């Protein structure tokens, strides 16, 4: 019993952080699936979502602020794609990636300019931030809500992609731009839609993530962004279930390592994992496979 009370918090924290990484990782993996682009600005969009919340609660009630955070983050994701990636549609992939890095720095420096570089106190979201006790272990309610919410959102997303028309268009576009256009699919709308979904999930993820931390800094998106990126690569970039499973594995492993008292090495573990994956199985757990004719 004592063993459970001692270790359960780490496991729960791991599952929770994993869920938060998963919500970010989906944004990376979906955009990669369609544009073959690592959207380096995604982690910073996540950070901006955190900052919007910080400022929004000062002028409006919490429920309204939550709606605003989601709407503004989605708008930001949409706008970044239209302004920084769409004009480069026929450019080499490297150019688009450089543009993504540019957007990343732009957002970080804008945040630096607005916040003055100081960590901004993230508001406590009622209910989510409440403390609960399970099997003798105390934790915030967000720890329990995150995995459930993540799995629910992922299920909805997978169904959307499998059974709706826009989902079918996304799958088609991720395979073959030209032929998709010949089907009458509006490529730009489909691409925008992936950014909208990715940003929406990042906004939800930011609320769950920052609730566990005291503040938002201009570089607060970098680390979770990178971890989520590793999760996406680990799971097989382009695959949504892969990204989610990868994120949970990384989140749980990091926290177990912390639980063992090796906190210093928890980040190193994640990036060592990236290197191992890239060497041993570059397509990840569920990476794209070529179909053989039978």
């Amino acid at each position, binding site marked *: 019993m004592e063993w459970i009370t001692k270790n359960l918090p780490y496991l729960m924290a791991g599952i929770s952080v994993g869920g938060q990484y998963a919500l970010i990782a989906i944004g990376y993996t979906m955009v990669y699936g369609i544009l073959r682009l690592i959207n380096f600005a995604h982690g910073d969009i996540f950070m901006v979502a955190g900052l919007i919340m910080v400022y929004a609660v000062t002028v409006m009630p919490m429920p309204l602020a939550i709606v605003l955070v989601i709407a503004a983050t989605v708008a930001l994701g949409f706008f970044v794609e239209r302004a920084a990636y769409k004009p480069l549609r026929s450019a080499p992939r490297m150019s688009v990636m450089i543009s993504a890095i540019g957007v990343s720095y732009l957002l970080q420096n804008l945040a630096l300019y607005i916040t003055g570089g100081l960590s901004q106190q993230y508001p406590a979201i009622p209910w989510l931030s409440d403390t609960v006790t399970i099997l003798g272990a105390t934790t915030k309610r967000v720890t329990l809500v995150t995995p459930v919410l993540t799995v629910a959102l992922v299920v909805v997303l997978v169904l959307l992609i499998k059974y709706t*028309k826009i989902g*079918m*268009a996304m799958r088609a576009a991720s*395979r073959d731009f*030209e*032929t998709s*256009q010949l089907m*009458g*699919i509006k490529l730009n709308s489909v691409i925008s839609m992936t950014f909208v979904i990715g940003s929406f999930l990042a906004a939800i993820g930011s609320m769950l993530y920052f609730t566990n931390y005291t503040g938002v800094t201009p570089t607060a998106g970098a680390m979770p962004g990178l971890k989520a990126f590793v999760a996406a690569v680990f799971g097989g970039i382009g695959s949504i279930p892969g990204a989610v499973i990868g994120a949970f594995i990384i989140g749980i492993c990091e926290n177990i390592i912390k639980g063992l008292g090796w906190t210093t090495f928890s980040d190193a573990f994640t990036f060592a994992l990236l290197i191992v994956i890239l060497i041993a199985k570059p397509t990840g757990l569920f990476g794209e496979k070529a179909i053989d*004719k039978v």
Partner: protein
Amino acid sequence: MSNNILEIKDLNVSYGGIKAVKDISFVVPKGEVVTLIGANGAGKSSTLRSIVGLVKPESGSIQFNGQELSGMPTDQIVAKGITLVPEGRRVFPDMTVLENLKIGAYMRKDSLEEDLKWVHDLFPRLKERSWQLAGTLSGGEQQMLAIGRALMSKPDLIMMDEPSLGLAPLIVKGVFDIIREINQQGVTILLVEQNANMALQAANLGYVMETGRITLTGTGAELLENEEVKAAYLGKAKK
């Protein structure tokens, strides 16, 4: 109103300074099978690709039912009732056969039942294999799927880029039978082929393309009898 569904005038297409199509003009009369034959690199595919807006023509006009198409994005051109069966079939390999057919009707909002039945009647094999992933079909079946997918958009004009490429002779014959059948049901067809013999037999009107220009025009039968065509494309020596 003219009887031509498609009118091309002085069309020029370039890829990075290399002229692929030079000042060509031709028409596709409504309800007919028209073929564009020629060797590799003659500019046939470039012509088709510019009609659907996948490449932007450098100059010239493309009129479909009297409406100018050049400069329009592909999805809008397709919405007007043109479709292209691309070279190499390009079915979506990780979607099922049925999904491939449904995505062909992506722009339509009405019921697909009737057209699915039509396509399934034309290609019974596609019905049997509805739940199979398209990537696992044989080349001939993929070509049928690509044609079926194009038909699902209920086009007025269907353009096919080398539908016989890489298929066994018996399958090629089947593909041409289907082309005739589709045409008899009222769809105008613009066919690009290297298999000049089969194409000209199926066509009411033929154009011969060489290095970006149209060099000969005639009915299918006339071109089949033409000595130059015989020598260059049908493998029969001049007497």
